C-alpha cells in the first residue's frame, strides 16, 4: 500500500477532501486485514469505519508519513482484538464438516479460483478457532497478508522473537488440524 505523503500532510492540516482520498486508498487494505482476522463482514466494516475516525482524530500525532501504514494497521488490529475479546464471551458454533469439505474441494478441484467472503470467513474461522487473538493476528498478517516479521512486530507492538514464536505455534496448530481433517 503506497500512500502519497502529500495527502497525509494535507490530512494533518485538516483538509477533508484529501482525507476522502486517503480513505478510498486505505479502506480495502484495512478491510482485508479486519475481515481476515474477525471473519465477520459487517463487524469488519464497522472496525474500518471506527479506525478511519480514530485516524482523523489522531493524524496530527504521526511524525512521518512513512510510518502511516504501520500506524493504520495497528489501529485496525487493536480494534479487531476488541471485537475478538467480545466475541470470545459469546462464541458461535461453526459448521466444521461443511467447511472442511469446502477446503478439500477447493484443493482438489479449483485451487486458483477466489473464495467468497463467507467461505473465507468460514475457513479462517475454522483454522484459527484454537488460537489466541494475538496468534490469530500474527497468522493472518504473516501467512495471508504476506507481511514481514519486522512489520508485524511494529504493528502489534511486540518483539520479532515473539512474532516468530506466535507464528510457529499458529502454524503448528493449523498444520495439525489440516493433517487431521483433510
Amino acid at each position, binding site marked *: 500500500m503506497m500512500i502519497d505523503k502529500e495527502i497525509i500532510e494535507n490530512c494533518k492540516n485538516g483538509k*477533508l477532501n484529501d*482525507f*476522502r482520498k486517503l*480513505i*478510498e486508498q486505505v*479502506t*480495502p487494505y484495512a*478491510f*482485508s486485514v479486519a*475481515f*481476515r482476522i474477525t471473519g465477520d*463482514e459487517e463487524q*469488519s*466494516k464497522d472496525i*474500518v*469505519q471506527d479506525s*478511519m*475516525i480514530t485516524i*482523523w482524530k489522531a493524524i*496530527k*500525532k504521526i*511524525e512521518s508519513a512513512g510510518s502511516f501504514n504501520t500506524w493504520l494497521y495497528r489501529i485496525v488490529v487493536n480494534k479487531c482484538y476488541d471485537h475478538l475479546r467480545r466475541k470470545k464471551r459469546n462464541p458461535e458454533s461453526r459448521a466444521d464438516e461443511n467447511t472442511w469439505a469446502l*477446503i478439500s474441494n*477447493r*484443493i482438489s478441484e479449483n*485451487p*486458483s479460483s*477466489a*473464495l*467468497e*467472503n463467507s*467461505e*473465507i470467513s468460514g*475457513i*479462517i474461522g475454522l*483454522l484459527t478457532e484454537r488460537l489466541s487473538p494475538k496468534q490469530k493476528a500474527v497468522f493472518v498478517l504473516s*501467512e*495471508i497478508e*504476506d507481511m514481514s516479521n519486522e512489520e508485524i512486530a511494529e504493528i502489534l507492538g511486540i518483539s520479532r522473537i515473539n512474532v516468530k514464536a506466535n507464528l510457529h505455534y499458529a*502454524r503448528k496448530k*493449523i*498444520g*495439525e488440524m*489440516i*493433517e487431521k481433517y*483433510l
Partner: protein
Amino acid sequence: METGVPKYEKVMDILKNSKPDFSGEKELTDNVLRHIQEEKSKIDLPELIIDYLFGWVYIGWVRRSMIAVTACIAIFFCYQQALILRRIDDLSGQRINDGTIIMTNMNDDLASKILNYRFPGRRLTKEDIDASKREIDELIKSLDRVQTKYQELVKAIGNNTELREYIESRMKEKSKSKI
C-alpha cells in the same frame, strides 16, 4: 497420500488468492466524513483550550527538545546541589576569627573546646575590663587551683610508669603532647 505441509501451503495459497470482496466502500467513506463533520460542528470548549495549550506535544521536535531541556535542568540541579553540599562541608570545617574568639566546628575533642574560648593574643586595655576586683581575685584563685591540680596529676603520673605509658599512648592517639 499428501502430507500436512503441502496441504497447508495449498490452503494458504487459496486464502492468499482470495481477497475479501469489499462492498459499500462509498457508503463507508460518506459515513466517516459525515461523522467527522458532525464532530467538527460541535464546539467542545475544554478540548479547544487543551489543544491550544498542549497542542505542541504533537510536534515531535518540540517534544524531544522539551525532554532534552528537562534532562539538562535536572542534571544542572543535581550538580548544583552537590556543589552546595560540598561548600557547606568545607565551611563547617573552617575556623572563624572575629578578633576576639576563634570558632571551630563543635566536636568532642577537648582541645577544640578549649580553643573556642581562647583569646588570640590580644592585649586588653583597662577600659576593656569590666569585671570587679573580687571577680578577678576569684579567677586567679581558680587558676591557681587548676595549676595545683595539674601539678599533682603530673606528680602522680611520674610515680606510676604503667599509668604514664597509658596516658602517653592515649596522647599519641590524639596527637597531643599536653592537655
